[in-house]
């Protein structure tokens, strides 16, 4: 085993993954399963039945105190004041210059405290950023609480039926992007109807000491539906089909959410927040570059970082790309000049020094049928 393996962080499910014969990779400093059987099989399980993901590497930040809501509204772009207790939404942390610190999920608790789910490799950075920009401004405490939570995602059309076997909480009463505190197999759990796959499903936050037991119980509960443990490989193809951003790709410190077509989470009229001034300027002038979906028309796959040309000239770059198991096409996301048509624009992705023909297409690439 390479010496660096010892330096990688592990989730409480590390041994469980090895027992499941998972292929492990370094993901932002974490030793995580990239696949168990096959990315395509795991992907298909989520689209047609149910898949189980260890997302314990994700970070959790708690904001507690009388001004918890005000603090979150100051650090994040969406309007948390619109959230009802037990409701959640997608939001972003920005630098003053408008670039993105992280994209996050904000949960509002009935006691007024706020619960943030942040990206694994950004959690220390996020925490330091939040502490810095809010210092002495709010009567609220910010706590990096990742050590107290493991997170498991149960995703797919049979996700509800699988999880329902292990909880007395009536899951069908939890609406999309709402959550509750309950119990799963006798252990306290925060149960959120959220996900990163474009399917219906749940993300549960539990004590790390219970993670391995619950993982195995969930696998047994989903057996009749054909549940599969899923790795980061399938997580990435699923979120790409749903055109959900991945920090470090579609969003970075030099990309703002308006460029990433995330204007719907930026509430410029809600009051002051970090990055608002910069984004107001972008909003007024219009972004110069925007995120686009594309589909390859010739043989070849546009991958992260590949150049994109229009009319024989460099015009942008691919942020994420790969085969879509559901559509059986090679798809991707890329940045291009904002005047580019969102559908039907002819582009060339430079695949190993060769221009390969592609076309812009509207996103998401995949949208589940509403029940």
């Amino acid at each position, binding site marked *: 085993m390479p010496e660096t393996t010892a330096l990688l962080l592990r989730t409480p499910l590390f041994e469980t993954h090895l027992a499941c014969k998972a292929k492990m990779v370094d993901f932002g400093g974490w030793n995580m399963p990239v696949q168990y059987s096959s*990315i395509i099989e795991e992907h298909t399980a989520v689209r047609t039945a149910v898949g189980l993901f260890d997302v314990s590497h994700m970070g959790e930040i708690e904001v507690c105190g009388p001004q918890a809501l005000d603090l979150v509204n100051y650090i994040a772009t969406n309007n948390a004041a619109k959230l009802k207790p037990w409701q959640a939404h997608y939001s972003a942390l920005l630098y003053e210059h408008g670039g993105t610190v992280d994209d996050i999920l904000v949960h509002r608790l009935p006691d007024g405290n706020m619960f943030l789910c942040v990206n694994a490799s950004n959690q220390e950075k996020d925490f330091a950023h939040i502490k810095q920009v809010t210092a002495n401004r709010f009567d609220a405490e910010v706590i990096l609480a990742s050590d107290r939570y493991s997170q498991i995602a149960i995703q797919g059309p049979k996700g509800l039926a699988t999880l329902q076997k292990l909880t007395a909480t009536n899951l069908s009463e939890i609406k999309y992007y709402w959550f509750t505190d309950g119990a799963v197999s006798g252990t306290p759990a925060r149960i959120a109807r959220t996900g990163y796959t474009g399917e219906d499903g749940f993300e549960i936050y539990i004590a790390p000491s219970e993670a391995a037991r619950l993982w195995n119980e969930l696998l047994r509960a989903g057996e009749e539906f054909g549940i599969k443990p899923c790795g980061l490989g399938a997580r990435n*193809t699923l979120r790409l089909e749903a055109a959900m951003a991945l920090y470090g790709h579609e969003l970075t410190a030099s990309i703002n959410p308006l460029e990433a077509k995330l204007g719907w989470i930026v509430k410029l009229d809600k009051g002051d927040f970090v990055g608002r001034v910069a984004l107001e300027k972008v909003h007024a002038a219009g972004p110069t570059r925007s995120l686009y979906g594309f589909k390859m028309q010739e043989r070849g796959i546009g991958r992260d970082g590949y150049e994109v040309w229009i009319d024989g000239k460099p015009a942008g770059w691919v942020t994420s790309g790969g085969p879509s198991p559901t559509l059986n096409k090679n798809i991707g996301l890329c940045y291009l000049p904002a005047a580019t048509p969102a559908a039907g624009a002819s582009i060339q992705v430079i695949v190993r020094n060769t221009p390969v023909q592609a076309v812009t297409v509207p996103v998401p690439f995949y949208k589940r049928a509403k029940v």
Partner: protein
Amino acid sequence: MTYPENFKYTKEHEWVLLEGGQGTIGITDHAQNELGDIVFVDLPKVGVTIAKGQTFGSVESVKAVSDIYAPVSGEVIEINAALATTPETLNSDPHGAAWLIKVKLSHPSEVSELLPVADYQKYIGV
């Protein structure tokens, strides 16, 4: 999966089967297993000259692109055209139906630098 005794191997996980002055080249079971679901294979054209140690094509799985290195030098005399439509054969039969190219060896002495099966298996730890 077993590694055929009559193949020679590289540390870049290619195999070559030598018959007369020709070599059939593929990637090993270990390679396909590391790559995962293979969705695309890029091969040179017949007539192209490849050089030992240089990339002559690529294999793409769902998650990544991987270059293929020439285990020997020579001229490409045949390519496995079936892989254009059924790249997944590389996952199921990497040592058989999913061979990649056939070459006419230009420097047959290079063969002595390739690994025999026992050395390759030791290298990948099986």
